[in-house]
């Protein structure tokens, strides 16, 4: 006992004061930190975050135009269609940065026509770059593995060989958006990063059967910009297509009806699902384009409520003849 007391006595005043100061400072720091971080209320759960808006890329708000070109060769039909609409110069100006939204949903070869045909991608990029575009980006958020999809559909090769830039949908590229006047697209992730700096938007879609919505055409193509568990929108498919058409306003929309997928869509998988309808439709009115496409698919407009819904919201007109479409046949 005595020894211990001796030990205790050996601490100097100076050391004791230093120790007191350190202890005091530590206690003060701990107390201050606790007071600073103290949360009296319970966490409120998800309160929503910052939302972005996809810009309007459309050229003509009122005078919309449409070109319908018959032919088997996609490169030629696309060329003619753009010519008929007034030439690429009408849409793409020098220095434009163009985003091309393709349909690359499935990892299937181009011959099955479940995805945007690479010939069209190649030609579209070439036209844009020729018109002086500084950049042509291609993107989609496919259903199957993205890398496999772009590879097997030939879109990657078509993009890179023609001087375009492929953007794969990395998870950090998605930002939340809310459609003003929308009911369904509320605080929902969209593939937003590819739009960065973009001045023109082109949608390129194949013409396909789709059991739930009736048909997959240019307006349904924007579904591929959605992220998250987007399949939930199938519960209200016609309204989500309408809202997508309201949200995404392209400079130009192209529907490839060269080989329409009549059955087993939208995946297809067999040549017997296809019909050589030999038609390419291009224009600035997605509703008119889709209305024409549904005729090619042998669907009644009344079975595709999304077309009338989009028309009612002022996206375009289902009466495509009223646009006086330019019709060209290539032999």
């Amino acid at each position: 006992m005595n020894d211990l007391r001796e030990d205790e006595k050996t601490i100097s005043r100076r050391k004791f004061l230093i120790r007191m100061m350190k202890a005091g400072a530590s206690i003060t720091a701990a107390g201050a930190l606790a007071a600073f971080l103290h949360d009296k209320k319970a966490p409120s759960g998800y309160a929503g975050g910052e939302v972005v808006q996809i810009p309007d890329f459309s050229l003509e708000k009122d005078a919309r135009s449409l070109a319908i070109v018959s032919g088997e060769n996609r490169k030629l039909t696309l060329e003619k269609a753009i010519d008929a609409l007034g030439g690429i110069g009408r849409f793409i100006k020098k220095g434009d940065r163009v985003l091309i939204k393709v349909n690359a949903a499935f990892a299937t070869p181009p011959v099955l026509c479940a995805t945007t045909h690479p010939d069209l991608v190649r030609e579209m990029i070439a036209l844009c770059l020729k018109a002086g575009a500084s950049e042509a980006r291609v993107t989609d958020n496919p259903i199957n593995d993205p890398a496999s999809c772009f590879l097997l559909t030939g879109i990657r090769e078509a993009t890179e060989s023609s001087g375009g830039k492929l953007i794969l949908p990395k998870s950090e590229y998605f930002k939340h958006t809310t459609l003003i006047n929308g009911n369904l697209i509320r605080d929902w992730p969209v593939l937003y990063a590819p739009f960065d700096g973009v001045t023109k938007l082109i949608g390129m879609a194949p013409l396909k059967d789709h059991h739930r919505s009736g048909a997959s055409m240019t307006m349904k193509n924007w579904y591929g910009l959605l992220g998250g568990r987007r399949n939930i929108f199938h519960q209200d498919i016609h309204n989500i297509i309408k809202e997508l058409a309201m949200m995404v306003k392209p400079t130009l929309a192209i529907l490839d009806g060269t080989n329409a997928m009549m059955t087993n869509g939208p995946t297809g998988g067999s040549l017997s699902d296809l019909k050589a309808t030999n038609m390419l439709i291009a224009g600035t009115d997605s509703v008119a384009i889709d209305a024409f496409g549904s005729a090619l698919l042998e669907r009644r407009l009344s079975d595709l409520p999304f077309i009338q819904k989009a028309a009612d919201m002022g996206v375009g007109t289902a009466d495509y003849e009223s646009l006086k479409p330019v019709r060209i046949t290539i032999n």
Partner: protein
Amino acid sequence: MMHNTGYKGLKIVTVRRISQIFFLLIFLWFCAVSTFGIEFWQLRNWPVNLFLNLDPLVALGTILATRTLYRGLLWALVTVILTMIFGRFFCGWACPFGTMHQFFGWLGNRKRKAADVMARNRYRKGQNIKYFILIVFLLMAFVPLNGSVSLQSGLLDPIPFAYRSVNIGLLPVADNIFHFASVTPRQYEHAWLIGGIFLFLLLMNLVIPRFYCRFICPLGALLGILGRFSIWRIGKTKPSCSNCKLCEKACEGACEPSDKIRISECVLCFNCLHVCPDDVLRYGTSESKAGEITNPDITRRGILASFLTGVLAVPMIRIAGKIGTNWHYRAIRPPGALPEEEFLRRCVKCGQCMRICPTNIIVPGGIEGGVENLLTPVLNFRSGTSGCQINCAACGFICPTGAIRPITISEKMGLNEYAEKGPIRLGAAFVDRSRCLPWAMKRPCIVCQENCPVTPKAIYVKEFYETVREGNYEMKEIRGTALHVEGTRMKPGKYATGDYFSLIRDQRYRITENSEDTITLEKAPEDMVDITLSERMEIQIRLQAPVVDVERCIGCGTCEHECPVSGLRAIRVSAENETRNRERSLFLRKR
């Protein structure tokens, strides 16, 4: 042959270090490049299975279990022959796992006193455990006590172990930051287990250097036995020396070079040659003057115990009946996987198929499918980017042992010469009607049908109309297409989705809009003149509900992956009806 005095050139240990670093780097490179794509660094004929092919334990295990030596495993002969000539060079010079251990051991020893390092590097009786592990694994693969054998050496074989740890435990961390393998995050069930054991074993080197190599490694044991009669070996040129034990301080194998060297423990690190102040250690053909211990330090009792374990283990494991009638329906194997019994004779759990799978659905299995299922490839359609893509067969091409055999797309899809056999089925999809949106909740959906990649689709729809809850209304007034009703107040717009109809006198009219009490119809009801007010009408929803045509279903799991019921999916694949096990088929086969 080589010693420390008079020789001024490149030291042998420097050459050994270069070799180790080289093999470790190409090993890591091969793991990293095992991804699907067309970049030069992606799987373009890189010999990514090199180390698995050079591993004699993979070769011997599969030979014992299948009586065949599959494809590239023939390369193991190179290792065997070189080991018989030079000793365990593979452990000290090539094994990437050994290099990792050696590096961590060096880290741990850096600041230790010489006596401490010597103590840690001394030979321990426990180093014989690895021989018993080897015996157990080989007997499990070889002795068909009740007709069944099982290849389990991959659990501890360092090469599959290293591949698995890097593929599943390590690389996905990098992938998920840099999107190396895919743009979406890679997910693997049990990655924590694989990565955790890997890190634990690396950290054990801080206690005893090369802990794994000395005590556990069954490949080291096999090479130790093969190297017993090696032509070249380390030994002393004089029976006695100053006994400074500096050689043992530097020794990687804990093989006691200062005394009677234990040939089967020596990993040919050559450290001893350079540290010996008496210059009595040589690597050459002559026998050590201090004597040698060529045999592993194993006891008869130990052999007996491991013999009993090895012979009894498989029959004991099989009591659970996991490859019999109690098979686990969620253990869905990749396309081309052999029948379960044969599969378990080959799979070394290296994780190569899991790494290469572009959709990231092949994951390490757990013990729910039996202890033999642990870390073997099973499909998880909840993670990953899609189901099993119909035109992909990457897993069978990378599999080093043929547990998943290489198949062509034609065979997988049942095309051309395989048309009569039909496609390879991984299982069958079943709709859970108590969870499915159209079936259970009267909501349109059919995402599964849309995504079914089979042609014609294996999922078709049953179409029907169903009156909605509180959907019975009294009609008050019809004006054009506007129908004023009385009944439960409607939520405005609720029936305006295009899927709802008004049933008036057995005629359906699509609803385009609704307010609280007025419904707008697509077209005005015909002969509405005689419709009496206060007559009733019903609001119906048109539903398409999914039905699986099991005869067409290939079990690819795309439907399960896409199902919007995100918890327990409303459509799920189980392995019934898989092609590889005939006894699991659902239908009676007629010719």
